């Protein structure tokens, strides 16, 4: 395939992918939660990228199948206290797709125990390089929670395209409250004083 043909094919593909959000939107109802909507958009986008990759590179991985295999990984990332915050996709010659997870809860002792059990099962079920990479991410997140220092991993970005990549956002454990949060805290404290 010459460069001119490749660029033309890419432009066509970009155009072909434009109705994806509309298709995804059809399948979600207004009563669905925001995370469901995001998941639907992600599903459509991942399917489209799967089609594109399959056409350009017949040996490329099926993202839908990859997503199914990642079910346990997503369960485990929830178990270690991270919740999905959003998805990022960009469409172009080098498309990118990833998701952002935010620290939403501390791990309890029971969570740690369950994590150890689930990781044993995860290792037994999946031994490939991607699964190994995912386990490294999970271990890093759990180890970050065990830190008793002044920092915490409050956000993690996981990219599947163009290459698997994890970005950890580390911030001070004790930060100054924002103006809104400070006002909220004062309101709660005054309410508590009122009832006492």
């Amino acid at each position, binding site marked *: 395939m010459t460069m001119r043909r490749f660029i033309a094919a890419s432009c066509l593909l970009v155009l072909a992918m434009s109705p994806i959000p509309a298709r995804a939107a059809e399948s979600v109802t207004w009563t669905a939660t925001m995370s469901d909507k995001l998941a639907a958009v992600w599903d459509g986008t991942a399917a489209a990228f799967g089609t594109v990759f399959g056409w350009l590179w017949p040996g490329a991985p099926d993202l839908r199948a990859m997503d199914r295999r990642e079910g346990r990984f997503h369960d485990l990332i929830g178990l270690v206290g991270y919740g999905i915050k959003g998805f990022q996709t960009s469409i172009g010659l080098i498309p990118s797709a990833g998701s952002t997870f935010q620290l939403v*809860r501390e791990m309890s002792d029971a969570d*740690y*125990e*369950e*994590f*150890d059990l689930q990781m044993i099962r995860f290792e037994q079920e999946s031994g490939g390089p991607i699964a190994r990479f995912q386990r490294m991410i999970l271990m890093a997140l759990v180890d970050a929670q065990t830190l*008793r220092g002044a920092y915490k991993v409050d956000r993690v970005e996981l990219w599947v395209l163009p290459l698997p990549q994890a970005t950890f956002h580390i911030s001070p454990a004790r930060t100054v409250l924002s103006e809104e949060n400070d006002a909220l805290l004062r309101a709660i404290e005054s309410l508590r004083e009122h009832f006492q």
Partner: protein
Amino acid sequence: MAQRPTLRFLRRVALVVAVAGWPVAGATAWAAEMTLVATASMAPYGAVLAERLRQRMPDPPVIAATDNVAVAVERFCVRGAGVDGLLLHRALNRRERQHCTDVGVEPVALALGVEAAVVAVPQGSVLSRMTLDALFAVAIREVSVEGRNRINTVGKWREADATHPDEAMILMVPADGAARALFDDRAMQSACRKLPGMQAIYSAAERSRRCTALRQDGIVREYDGAAALDQALAEPSPGLVTIMSSAAFAARASRLTALPVEGVVPDDDSISDESYPLSRRVYLYLRKPDSRHQGAADRHRLAMVADAASHEEAVGPGGAFAAAGLVPLPLAARGEQRAAVLKRLTGDWP
């Protein structure tokens, strides 16, 4: 005129003092009392271990009990001279192991056997199976309905699980002990993870407290001790379900039936390999001897504790821990563990 001591002379004196002081330090370590700490639920197994150590050692370690798991772990994983061993109803988790490593303590794990919580019903009961979700649905104090927390009002087994009979429910739960810890961790907290309302709570302590808070309207009843359990079982209702340790069940097996949980029947095989959901290993952790701070005699005593606790007379079928209610690990696992623990404790000795 008196000659002032040279630097070389002072070095020689320091060397002689260090070499001569080494056995003295060893003798001091020998004199130090050896202590193990056990969580409250480990009291029966602590007593078994203490008896075995009394038979084998002239100066056996003291076994101290504490109600608080975090305190027990903190006493074990402390820099310098802490307690020498820890009896725990579960494995040290990743955070606790990391804490130990951070303060220079290397825990050596020895599984004494497997503890199980049996879900038992009187013989002829209308119930024939159980799920963790159904136990949680019955026992939890607050439920989340349309984003709001409300008091649990489920009253019949069919309301907790559509496949169960339409029978009024009574759930008896031990007030404490290893079976209660298993019920809280594996049934209550496990099912609670599926509730978005509970998972929205950031604090682990507050979430655990809510996820294990039992209802107080009489449907869930805590019992304290064997007498209270037998009293409840004397006149059983058709919908009565009792959570009890495997030892308590074995003592009443002629009157009770153990329900399969998540499709797994609690027997020696399923408990031993931990495929039964309400089962887990209990551990004795020993501090790996530090040759810089501990004398040879002290290290020898640690090895004697490990030897006594891992011997087939203790952990094998018909052993002391099995008599106290633990299900032994598989034979191969017991052998491998004993060899590995003794090697870790004595491997790099001079």
